[in-house]
């Protein structure tokens, strides 16, 4: 026991004391913020002034110009409730929506001019505008066909220099759509005051029913999906960050030629196990620190938002039992993937070699995530059952099943059992390959050689 603890302690203390660990622990949350928020901000930022837009309204009397202009310039002001909704949707939405929403918040301005086509051929009007765009006096123009209110297939057109600015064209598209639909409704006799109420979105409420036939609280399933995604992300992140560390820990004694001294004192299985536990504790330490910081920020953030009158930010609420499952399957997932790195480390002589061999591990992890999408749609299918039993997929797929439609306990336990057994098996295999490989004078092992070592007594 002294020996095992000594190994765990050394791996842990050496790493936690390292400057790299401290730097990463501090930089981690900063980088998370930078990578999730900054791209959205950058995308929404429009440098250089307003978009100069001309509207060529071919309808009789140019009656649509005003409504379109008002819509594009967003002249109606948001009331407080609206603002709350917008922030809520921003917090809970996925990335693309978030970028769009953020861009609305940072809305680039438009300056709009009217071009009256009466008395000129449409081609000459276009020619004139094209030339102005060419001279950079204008950024683009909208061509509104004369029959736009009466013909549903009639299509307005946008001509502009920068077709790649999806944010701007997207804004124009949505706002134009708004304005024209409104005008069509007005034209067909709907009262101005009724338009708002009639075109309100219909929201579907979903209520889960569990295996005992009990009805649960309203739940869109989004929270559940988020939780699955979080677990997958957490495993992914930890494996990505710590896989290389595990690999490095195994290779360290080969590179520093200490392995032989260790083997004269301790069995290789104990050594491998000690390394795995030591590095895992480092990972957990770091995650715990991040977790606390994240929680603090969330609590503070939600409090700050609600104090400004923002309501309805849903914190996913799940039965406490689920948290036990998450912990178990997260640990299982982490150990499963770490032992693969351990195995790779046992075969190679330098970390660089190992890094190359470790590439496919990430694919394995991704495969599990993709299967989660299939499983979440039919969590009790045969497919779902089998993939939740396969060790390298089970940490993600089983969690999906648990949150969407909790399977019988024996299945959960079986899945955990198979996973744990795989970890031990991989650990044993790694320690064997490591010990025999080390005696082969530090050359890189080929797969057939490794197979032979495993069989060798």
């Amino acid at each position, binding site marked *: 026991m*002294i*020996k095992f*603890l*000594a*190994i765990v302690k*050394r791996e842990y203390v*050496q790493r936690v004391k*390292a400057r790299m660990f401290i730097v990463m622990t501090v930089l981690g949350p900063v980088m998370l913020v930078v990578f999730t928020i900054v791209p959205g901000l950058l995308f929404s930022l429009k440098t250089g002034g307003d978009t100069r837009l001309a509207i060529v309204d071919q309808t009789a009397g140019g009656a649509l110009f005003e409504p379109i202009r008002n819509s594009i310039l967003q002249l109606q002001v948001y009331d407080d409730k609206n603002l709350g909704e917008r922030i809520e949707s921003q917090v809970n939405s996925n990335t693309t929506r978030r970028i769009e929403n953020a861009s609305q918040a940072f809305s680039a301005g438009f300056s709009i001019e009217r071009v009256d086509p009466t008395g000129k051929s449409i081609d000459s009007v276009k020619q004139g505008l094209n030339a102005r765009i060419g001279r950079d006096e204008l950024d683009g123009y909208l061509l509104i066909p004369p029959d736009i209110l009466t013909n549903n297939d009639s299509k307005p057109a946008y001509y502009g220099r920068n077709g790649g600015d999806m944010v701007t064209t997207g804004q124009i598209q949505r706002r134009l759509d708004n304005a024209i639909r409104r005008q069509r409704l007005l034209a067909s006799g709907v009262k101005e005051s009724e338009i708002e109420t009639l075109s309100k979105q219909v929201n579907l409420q979903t209520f889960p029913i569990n295996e005992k036939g009990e009805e649960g609280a309203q739940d869109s399933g989004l929270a559940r999906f988020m939780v699955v995604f979080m677990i997958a992300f957490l495993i992914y992140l930890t494996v990505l960050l710590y896989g290389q560390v595990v690999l490095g820990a195994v290779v*360290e004694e080969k590179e*520093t*030629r*200490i392995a*032989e*001294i*260790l*083997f*004269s*004192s*301790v*069995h290789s299985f104990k050594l491998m196990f000690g390394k795995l536990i030591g590095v895992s504790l480092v990972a957990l330490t770091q995650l715990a620190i991040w977790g606390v910081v994240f929680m603090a920020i969330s609590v503070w953030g939600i409090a700050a938002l609600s104090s400004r009158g923002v309501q309805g930010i849903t914190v996913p609420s799940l039965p406490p039992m689920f948290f036990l499952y998450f912990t178990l399957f997260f640990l299982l997932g982490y150990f499963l993937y770490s032992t693969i790195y351990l195995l790779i480390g046992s075969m190679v002589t330098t970390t660089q070699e190992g890094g190359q061999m470790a590439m496919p591990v990430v694919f394995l992890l991704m495969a599990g995530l993709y299967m989660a999408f299939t499983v979440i749609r039919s969590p009790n299918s045969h497919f779902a059952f089998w993939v939740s039993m396969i060790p390298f997929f089970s940490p993600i797929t089983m969690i999906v099943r648990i949150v969407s439609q909790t399977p019988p306990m024996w299945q959960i336990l079986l899945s955990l059992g198979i996973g744990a057994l795989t970890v031990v098996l991989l650990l044993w295999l790694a320690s064997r390959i490591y*010990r025999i490989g080390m*005696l*082969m004078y530090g050359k890189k092992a080929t797969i057939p050689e490794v197979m*032979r070592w495993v069989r060798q*007594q």
Partner: protein
Amino acid sequence: MDNNNISVKVDRVSKTFGEFTAVRELSLSVRAGRIFGLLGPNGAGKTTSIRMIVNITAPDTGTIEVFGQKIDSQLQDRIGYLPEERGLYKRMKVGDQLKFFGELKNVSGKDAEGRIDHWLSRLKIPEWKNKKAMELSKGMQQKVQFIAAILHEPDLLILDEPFSGLDPVNVELLEKVVLELKLSGKTIIFSTHQMEVAERICDDICLINRSQKVFEGSLREIKSSFGRNSVALRFEGGNGVLADTSLVSKVDRHSDETEVLLAPNASAQVLLRRLVDSGATIEKFEMIEPSLNDIFIAKVTENS
């Protein structure tokens, strides 16, 4: 030799790696409280034999007993091993490192502390305790590795090329420590191909070549079995004489004297007369024992 005095008994042990036989039918006995030299050229099978004794690999056939028991992981704690392939954790402080190696041999951190201080000052590197290994010179690292091998006060100490790369001052320092350990009753297996060192400190030797044992016995025995058939000379002139192969089979010219190995059936008297006859001025003419180096080379070439 009665069994109580045998620390390590290797009995008809063989080990193959694929096609390659590293050790073939090796038997040897290491007597307690003595320094046993395991000698042989590179690739002879020394390291593989040692690894089997320390229980890093298992023999394919044959048995190994240490202190009268079949070797197992418990016994490993009574063995100290300084492998030829050795290193240190670069970023770890010397003191922490030694404590770790001690714990791997079941020595508690508290016990280790005092011993570490004692040995660091004994080997004249106490000020390096709190330095990282990467700041140490190669020789200092080697001393730290040596301490790691003896920190748990093993009854059996196995040293594989312990002095390679050390300067003469440090070689002498470590030699002294090794001899002290022997006097305190430890058994030491000393593997090397540096014959001068082996000659200085070994009581018994075992010579292996090409995976097999060539000779085993006390240093005295092997030397006397070779007889006094070498002559140390210091002379001027009369050079042609040493070229006569019926008289001399080997000539080693050192800077100030010449060592010759007499040809079989040639006598020292004849050599002396021939030298005198050729008009050489002789300052020194002494019958000496063959060096272990000569014996080694003779045995190895004879064996190949």
